[in-house]
């Protein structure tokens, strides 16, 4: 028996039995020094107003953020949706902890350096109607933040904590993973809008 929503076939957890992994990592501690180093680099770049570093952080961070969102939302997400529950669990226990660390780091690197860069390059002072492109970028980022922080990330964490239980609830994991797949798809599509807006701003 399968739940089918918007073309994504999700096998019922009743059809599958999964052993709970013995150890599920929520946050990979080995990645924390890298995150710390990236944040320190961001602070130095902002305080010293290094244009090259701000540009690097915004372009590299934004490129990775957009690319990962698009890839996860439009490629990985539908694949996860078609996996069996045991395979999904196996994949999630290795994939999601890394996302817990990578995505917030990329977001803060991109946004903080982007704001500083826009000030330095005078993009914020551009008059309307071109200024609407900036406003549109703020709105897209705002909507993505609400979806990612209000729906996607809570589902991600709840799945990981459920998997830590001796007897994880398969129905709950399937329900939360479905939410993860949909919200990742929505933010992926919204990233296309970001690409259009940023290309437009970069070629004023």
């Amino acid at each position, binding site marked *: 028996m399968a739940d089918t929503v918007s073309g994504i076939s999700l096998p019922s957890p009743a059809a*599958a*039995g999964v052993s709970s992994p013995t150890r599920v990592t929520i946050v990979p501690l080995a990645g924390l020094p890298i995150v710390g180093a990236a944040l320190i680099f961001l*602070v130095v770049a902002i305080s010293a107003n290094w244009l090259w570093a701000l540009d690097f952080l915004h372009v590299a961070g934004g490129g990775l953020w957009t690319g990962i969102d698009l890839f996860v939302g439009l490629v990985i997400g539908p694949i996860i949706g078609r996996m069996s529950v045991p395979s999904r669990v196996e994949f999630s226990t290795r994939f999601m902890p890394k996302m817990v660390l990578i995505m*917030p780091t990329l977001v803060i690197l991109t946004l*903080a350096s982007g*704001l500083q860069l826009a000030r330095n390059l005078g993009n914020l002072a551009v008059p309307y109607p071109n200024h609407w492109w900036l406003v549109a970028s703020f709105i897209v980022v705002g909507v993505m933040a609400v979806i990612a922080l209000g729906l996607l990330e*809570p*589902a991600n964490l709840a799945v990981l904590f459920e998997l830590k239980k001796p007897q994880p609830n398969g129905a709950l994991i399937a329900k939360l993973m479905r939410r993860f797949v949909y919200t990742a798809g929505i933010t992926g599509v919204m990233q296309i809008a970001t690409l259009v807006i940023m290309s437009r701003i970069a070629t004023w």
Partner: protein
Amino acid sequence: MVSQSDAQPPQALPPIVQTAVGSMALVIAGGIYLAAYLPHQAPLPIPVVLISLGGVSLLAAAAMLTRLRDFAWTRFRLVSGWALVAYAVIAGMIEYVLLVDQTRGALLVLMTITLAIFALDIPIILGFSVARHQQAGSASRP
């Protein structure tokens, strides 16, 4: 083995996540309004209303949270505590950018309140979303 029990949590819980997400959406909308006028200062009445409503929603979510019985408080504190640390750092970074850019006066106050509400909403959302599916290990309130 994965258990086949019902995916719904055992007790009906108040709309804490919805309220906190609403709060986050309101303060983000206020922040977007303020940012849309940069480098000039935006008219303040609309963002003040949005951010105030966001603050009220945050307080409502916190009030609903404190009324919960038989809740996995230990797990809630674990998740929301670390989330608070992480998002305090993120909000602090944005505040730092504002200070470096010479943002001052009412705009700085509004942006600081916005960031504070944002940094408090997310720990509630994450902590509650995890703890609601956990067995109540501690009945003590936060």
